């Protein structure tokens, strides 16, 4: 499983309740630290990792059941919308709907892993995707102060890109 903010392997897996919905978060150590989560500086020991793996396996069945109603926190696309429209809403959807997409990719491409040209790594990009989604929501609820703050933040990140 990959970090939801960058392309590193996720080592922190959290389930949290947002607006009464269960939301899973998968972060690499660096992004988890960025997000203000307290992490031990030493790598997670195997015991904890295995416990997390078990926890995720236990939830796989549930995830498949929930898949249809699940939605992407960044672009708000529901898996059902994708199944009817055939288009994904944002790059993050490949992780959010991974359980549904993997068998589909296997059927169409006969493969599920990329081989070939590699893009350069751009660590800031998925954070900006998240900020833009927050900006859209702030504009939608007419919170212009927050929108202006987010816009500045995006601009700042753009300069560092």
């Amino acid at each position: 499983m990959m970090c939801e903010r960058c392309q590193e392997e996720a080592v922190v897996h959290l389930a949290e309740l947002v607006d009464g919905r269960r939301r899973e978060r998968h972060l690499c150590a660096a992004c988890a630290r960025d997000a203000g989560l307290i992490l031990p500086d030493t790598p997670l020991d195997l015991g904890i990792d295995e416990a997390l793996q078990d926890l995720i396996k236990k939830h796989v069945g549930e995830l498949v059941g929930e898949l249809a109603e699940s939605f992407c926190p960044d672009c708000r696309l529901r898996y059902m919308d994708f199944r009817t429209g055939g288009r994904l809403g944002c790059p993050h959807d490949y992780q959010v709907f991974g359980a549904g997409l993997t068998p589909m990719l296997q059927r169409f491409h006969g493969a599920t892993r990329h081989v070939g040209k590699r893009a350069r790594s751009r660590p800031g990009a998925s954070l900006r995707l998240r900020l833009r989604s927050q900006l859209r929501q702030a504009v939608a609820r007419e919170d212009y102060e927050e929108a202006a703050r987010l816009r500045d933040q995006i601009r700042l990140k753009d300069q560092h890109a």
Partner: protein
Amino acid sequence: MTLDDLTRTSGEWLRGTGPESDIVMCSRIRLARNLADFPFTNRASRSEKAGIESQVKSAIDSAGLEVSYFDVNSMSNLDRQFLVERQIISRELAGGEGPRGVAVTPKENISIMVNEEDHLRIQYMLSGFRLHEVWDEINALDDQLEDDIAYAYSSSLGYLTACPTNVGTGIRVGVMLHLPGIVANKQIDKVFRALQKINLAVRGLYGEGSQAFGDFYQISNQQTLGKSEEEIIKMLTDVVPQVLQFERSARQDLITGRRQHLHDQVSRAYGILKTAQTISSEETMLLLSSVRMGINLGLIDDLAISTVNELFIQTQPAFLQKLRGSELGVEERNVARASYLRSRLSNGRPVEDD
């Protein structure tokens, strides 16, 4: 370069040069790319689409490409159709909404569509069978654009695209073939089935769902994940020569078995195109296809292959209307088409009577 300038020039890919150009009209590679920090085009707001457009435009500028950018959003329907006919934009981009456009080089080898199904659809075309050359060019161009753009990419799934059928390399490698011989000997369905079995797609001149205009067919890969760009190109460079072999032997059969009949058919086609006073698009395609094969078989010797290639594009409805500077009904177009054909096929001598 303006849109009107385009009515006086034609794309390099129509020149009819390069390897196997008697059958291979052009080689083309398209890359689907998206910006990592925006939703895909179909979920992007108007202002996000404008943001995507300005980022891509500045990346194109810094790459130092000599291009003209056409704002498709503010364009008339006729102009959009004109660019579709020229293979510069897709029907999807023409019919889309919101900020979107295309950057084109003067020779029309490169076109970069912005805010199509994916944020970027980079296309490189060259006349003849030259896929490796096309790949080298487009690969370098992709690298240049990446200097200024953070692409949506994952190490496990590759380049992330709006439709999962393009994920991975995001590449479509294709050749446009002229196959009148295989059409004539009725083996075309057999060839298609064989190609589909190895997961290659066959489409008409104007892409998905379009009729095969003038015996032109595009053969391209469908799968983009799990194979490298070089492996996908190799699939095409392995298979296409077999199709070429098939087409050559079909043409040879036609000329040895029924030389007189074939010569008659080709000459009549040429005659009609040179003299008709009104002619439909369908008939034009059919006759041009015959003439094109006739040139390649040495049955016509006073006409350049590039002229015929250009006429496939320049007898389409929007081109004729741009040339006349006004919208034309079907009947008027048929007259305009015949008149344009007469002027182009008279080796430059003016024979207009209108």
